[in-house]
């Protein structure tokens, strides 16, 4: 205490500021470094999407078992070409078909999850009923079950419901997935039970509580769930492969599920095209997330 007193207040303040800024810079630096590390391999994608097939073959020939030495990668192709994009964007209507399939399916899934998962999550968060813990545990376990095991019984169910080979065969199970419930539940648990009690005492209906307290407060959980769900379903491979026989119903992720070297360029181009909407969704989702947080801040 005494030592502190010797330091002038402005100095303390300045030091604190400086320290704060330094920490901020440091944090930023670290984060940027990590982010760039994470993104570094992805830089191969735009490069690859514009790389001439011959060049790619040449620089990758060691990997293909056709040469000695080590493979290299040109982040900026020596012989750049927009051939792959041309092939993909101009010459492949199938790409668009699948793209819209994916968009449609993902949108349907996300909306469905909102409609179904949100109340479920709310129920788990807001009510304490018998078996809640067990049920919730079950939800978690069901979420964790590998798809391989669920493939067969789900197939049987879908077959029985005459959904097999129809996009709903992918959409419906996804809609009822326990995963968003799980995440959104976490968002709702932040709400203090007292608030709910108080609201109930005030005579608010359950729906009112849900809409006026639950939704705004759980918003970031919802947003997180949506962004994550989007990621999950934007690149869904296994379910459609198992449940959709008809190619016309496929999502984009099955366009090139396996890549041979000759297709690599196009595959990279596809990746770029897939990444663009994802970027938008991230940005917008986060935006909404921010907003939600800000909103909560204001409310609180």
């Amino acid at each position, binding site marked *: 205490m005494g030592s502190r007193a010797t330091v002038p207040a402005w100095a303390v303040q300045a030091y604190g500021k400086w320290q704060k800024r330094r920490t901020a810079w440091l944090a930023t630096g670290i984060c940027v470094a990590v982010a760039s590390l994470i993104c570094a391999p992805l830089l191969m994608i735009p490069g690859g999407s514009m790389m001439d097939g011959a060049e790619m073959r040449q620089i990758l020939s060691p990997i293909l078992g056709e040469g000695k030495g080590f493979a290299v990668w040109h982040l900026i192709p020596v012989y750049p070409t927009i051939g792959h994009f041309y092939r993909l*964007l*101009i*010459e*492949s*209507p*199938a*790409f*668009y*078909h*699948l*793209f*819209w399939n994916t*968009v449609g399916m993902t949108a349907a899934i996300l909306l469905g999850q909102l409609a179904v998962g949100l109340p479920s999550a709310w129920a788990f968060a807001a009510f304490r009923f018998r078996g809640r813990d067990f049920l919730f545990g079950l939800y978690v376990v069901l979420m964790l079950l590998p798809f391989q095991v669920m493939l067969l019984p789900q197939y049987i169910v879908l077959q029985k419901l005459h959904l097999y080979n129809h996009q709903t065969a992918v959409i419906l199970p996804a809609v009822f997935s326990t995963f968003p419930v799980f995440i959104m539940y976490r968002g709702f648990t932040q709400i203090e039970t007292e608030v709910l009690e108080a609201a109930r005492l005030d005579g608010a209906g359950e729906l009112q509580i849900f809409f006026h307290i639950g939704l705004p407060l759980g918003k970031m959980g919802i947003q997180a769930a949506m962004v994550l769900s989007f990621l999950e379903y934007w690149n869904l491979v296994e379910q459609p492969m198992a449940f959709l026989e*008809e*190619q*016309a119903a*496929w999502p984009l992720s099955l*366009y090139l599920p396996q890549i041979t070297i000759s297709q690599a360029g196009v595959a990279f181009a596809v990746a770029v095209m897939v990444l*663009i*909407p994802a970027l*938008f969704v991230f*940005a*917008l989702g986060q*935006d909404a997330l*921010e907003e939600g947080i800000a909103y909560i801040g204001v409310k609180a």
Partner: protein
Amino acid sequence: MQTESKKKLWRGFALFMVAMLIMTYVSRMVYVSRMPRVKWSNPMSASIRNKITAEGTVEAVNAQAVIGMDGLLVETVCVAAGDRMEAGTVLYEVNREDLLAQLSQLEAQEQAWQNQEQAKRREAATNTTRAQEDYDMDVIELDRRIAEETKKLEELMEDLDTHMFRIPEEDASDEIWIAWADERLRFDREIAEKKRMIEDIQLEKEKILRQADRELEDARRAQSAAESGLELGASGISQVRERQERIALLKELSGNEGKVRAKSAGEILEVMMQSGMRMGADAVLRYADDGGSRIFCTVITQEQKPLVHTGDMVQLTFPGSAEEVSETIDSIVQENGGYTVKIRLEPGVAAGRFEGVMELNATSEIYDFVVPVKALRNDGGNAIYVLEEKEGILGTELCVRSMTVRLLDKNEEYAAIADELLTGDIKVVTECDRELENGMAVKE
């Protein structure tokens, strides 16, 4: 700031989606515009009119020969096998010196022979004349004798008559009577004797005349023989004739400056002489006379065989001539790997032609599946593209599928195909505006 960037983001996102939407249509359009456009038809049940064309040779049925000028030396041969000859075409020339030498020799022989013959003839004529004269003289002599005797006979007859008038009276004595009677008897005897004499002379005359006549005849015969040369005998005569003919020939030849010309039109089949050769009496040249008949021969493949039958009407043309004939096939014989078709031509047809082209419009049996020949491809086998619907990423699309088929028959326009899977309502691609590949999506 915050909302603005958010707005921007939303706008960007919307823009991206709209761009994707537009591109969807653009790529569709590109895709469709690059899709081959095909036309199709169902296979028909039809027969195929197959035009079978086969080149063949024209062969003469019987060849004729030009006999060489025996013993003459060929100076130049003017034709070769395969040449066409018209009447008057120079076939070859003989050595004129040789020719003239031979001719003069022959003429000398002939002259000698003529002279000899004339002498013979003259002698025979003399003999005849003499015999005639003998004969005539004999006739005159004998006639004179006959006339003499006849006169004597008549005198006797008159004497007899007179005697008869001097017939004694009835009462004449016996002697008279006897004398008269005796007289009369004498007369009778004398007349009879005379008559016998005349007869004898006449017999003799006949005899003499016959002999004279024979002699005359002999002489005459000899004469005529001499004149006709009969006495040379058959070989002699032919020799003479030959010589004479030969002389005439050689003369004619020399008149033609030693050129031997064709007598009729035809084509040379074979030349069996060469210049400098002395010809024999056998053929030096064989040729097919235009007036003769010919056979058209050609070989057809095993595939064509089922379409060609004995008795089928075919069109024959001969390169180089405007002739076009319809004939029926006479025979089809299997020969080493192919089938030889023979067609006998009318005499005079295809004169001067060695090659011909046979055309046969064969109408096949009715095949179940006939497609335009354009629809047929060959990719290591005969195949057609059939139009099918395919489930793809873009939904149901039309696509072509290659179908291997057996080719039964075809002509320039149509092909008959077979396969267990063919049906009448299969859609066979007949036309396309670019190269197709199996499984390629197409538009109608």
